[in-house]
């Protein structure tokens, strides 16, 4: 079975937004993003905070920005 490729383009200095139905799902996506960024020589600069119900839809979201190490 092939592994689904969920990687997205991470650009230094540009915020990346992740949205999911649960806090754990957002945390997992953030962890994947951090790992991907690290492999590309990027480190988190700001954000990463998981917000709840920002849009009034009961969803969890986070915005994180990476910069070159």
């Amino acid at each position, binding site marked *: 079975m092939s592994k689904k490729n969920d990687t997205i383009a991470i650009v230094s200095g540009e915020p990346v937004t992740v949205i999911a139905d649960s*806090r754990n799902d*957002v*945390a997992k996506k*953030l*962890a994947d993003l951090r790992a991907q960024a690290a492999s590309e020589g990027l*480190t*988190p*600069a*700001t*954000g*990463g*905070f*998981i*917000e*709840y*119900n*920002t849009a009034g839809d009961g969803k*969890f979201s*986070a*915005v*994180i920005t990476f*910069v070159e190490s």
Partner: protein
Amino acid sequence: MALTKIMGEHFRTFVGGNAVPEAVNCSVTISGSMEDSTTKDTVGSYAQEQMTSKDWNVSVETRDASLASLRALITRFNSDAKVTVGWDQTAGTQNRVAQNAPFARSGQAILNDLSIQANNRTNIQVSSQYQGSGALA
């Protein structure tokens, strides 16, 4: 990665998704209103209690006295608008990157208390308190 024990500087509050800048201290309070539900049917002498409502608020004190931040705070207070507020463990650049610790929580809150302390020849201290409105998750 979350540590098993954290120091106060790594526990930060977030407003609008960002760590409150130049914070000096912060506090989080979660409480529940209790009601005595003891009746004549209750066996024994101990009272029975039930929680009728839950309440949370976040307060933070900062040395961020920039014109932009003061204006933003007063505008926020006047607007009565809800903003996303929460807390998390932090690390990284300027100690502002959230670490998604197990105790991190977030919710909608209203800025209901703003205090600006400006003494002669000292840093201005700005205290703000956010009253939670709705679920904390």
